[in-house]
């Protein structure tokens, strides 16, 4: 599903974001990518959604080589990957319903279908009664659930969650991780980028550990090994 071969990212003038990273993530896996700040987690996430280009190496998503993806093809890639961000990245002037529907609108889904699917997805994340609210009228946990609904609504094969619990309290963080596990149970590949030790250890799923831009550990039922 996700395949990186000898991928390096060097920022100008000579800052190594990632160095010679090779990894393979199979369909339906739940993978946590962990590491301290500056380890290269976010660089890896940005490479997967073509927000950054690798300096060297090859990246394939679902068999599609996106290493040198053309600017005009990026929207098509992003419609296949659901992304959850730490800072939510909701459109502030759109309601909950419109934020979620936007992901379908850009993909050209007909209005009738959008009106059908969006309330269903909002019900799954428990926001069906708040769909006419604006993001500023929601709590942090609720906003993150909207983001997950938006990421899920077009049924992506991959869900990339970059520090989704970073701005949340323990209870909300737990709810978000439960939601990600449910999504994974339906067959979606989940890539969780985090430095939250408790979350990773509780999951008991594959853990890839990054340090200074390199993979230092990759365990099938791993734990957060690095010091906090």
């Amino acid at each position, binding site marked *: 599903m996700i395949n990186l071969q000898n991928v390096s990212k060097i920022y100008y003038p000579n800052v190594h974001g990632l160095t010679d990273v090779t990894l393979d993530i199979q369909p339906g896996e739940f993978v946590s990518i962990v590491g301290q700040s500056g380890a290269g987690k976010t660089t890896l996430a940005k490479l997967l959604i073509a927000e950054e280009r690798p300096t060297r190496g090859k990246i394939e998503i679902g068999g599609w080589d996106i290493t040198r993806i053309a600017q005009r093809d990026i929207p098509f890639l992003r419609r296949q990957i659901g992304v959850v961000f730490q800072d939510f990245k909701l459109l502030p*002037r759109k309601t909950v319903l419109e934020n979620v529907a936007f*992901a379908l609108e*850009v993909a050209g889904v*007909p209005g009738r279908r959008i009106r059908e699917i969006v309330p269903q997805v909002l019900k799954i994340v428990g926001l069906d009664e708040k769909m006419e609210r604006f993001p500023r009228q929601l709590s942090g946990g609720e906003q993150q659930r909207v983001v997950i609904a938006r990421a899920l609504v077009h049924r992506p094969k991959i869900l990339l969650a970059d520090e989704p619990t970073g701005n949340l309290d323990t209870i909300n963080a737990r709810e978000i991780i439960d939601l990600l596990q449910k999504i994974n149970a339906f067959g979606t590949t989940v890539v969780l980028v985090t430095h939250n030790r408790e979350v990773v250890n509780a999951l008991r799923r594959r853990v890839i550990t990054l340090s200074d831009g390199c993979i230092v550990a990759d365990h099938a039922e791993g734990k957060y090994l690095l010091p906090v």
Partner: protein
Amino acid sequence: MSFFIRCWRILAAAWKHFTRNLWLALTTVFVLVLALLSVNVLLGVNVLLTNAVRQLEDKIDVSVYFQANTPPAVLEQARFFMDSLPQVKSAQLLTADKALEQFKQLHANEPKILGALSELDQNPLGATLIIKANRTSDYPFLLEALKNPQFDFAIESKNFEDHADTINRVRDIGRSVQMFGTGLIAVFALFSILIVFNTIRVAIYTQREEIGIMRLVGASNAYVRLPFVLEGIFLALFALLVSAAVVYVAAYYVDPRLKGLLDGSDAGLVAFFVTNWWRLALIEGGVLAGLVALSSWAAVGKYLKK
């Protein structure tokens, strides 16, 4: 995605941007209105000055004084000939009696002149032909035309020489006003373009994060850009309506109050804006909408690359 669905969604998104971003929209409209007003105020001033010069020009004429015993047939021939020239706006013949009557009216408060006149047995004045040209530049030609041998012999004097300086000065003022007005309008139009461009850039800058989010969610460049461009066009049209309302109300208010400055003549502001409303709306609206659309396109493009 069908073309119509895409258009409808872009239009709906633009309208929602506009209504949900009301304060930013109103601030932008305010600046656009100021830009339009500055150009319209100068247009109005230009109209005013042009009308003032035209009224000065209207007051200029050439009076041709005929000898007292000139036969009416010669006088009529002179009037007919001059009136038939395309450069002549009007040629009015005053008979000797009327000329005397006017002379008396003109000098009603000067008993010495009136006393001297009453001493005379007969009317010392001849008929007078008053000629007005279409343009001040036509007067030299008309003076040449008056040298027609069919009535030239009967002309005692012409007063154009007395007015020549005035006519030339008025012509110079007219030319200067036109040049200065056009230049000033061009400069203000340029300032307005820069103001509009920067206003739109600032408005888009405040929404740069949204542009990035739309891209991350998978929106194509056109799908992100077009609502902003359309929103800009809404703002331009709204600004055009507001500035038109302000200009027309101001013109109706100011026009009668300027009569005093123009010897009771109409300042022509209302007439200008009413007669040319569609042309002004088309040019100003078109230029503004085009400029705003272009500025929005360029400003959004800056954040699409990030």
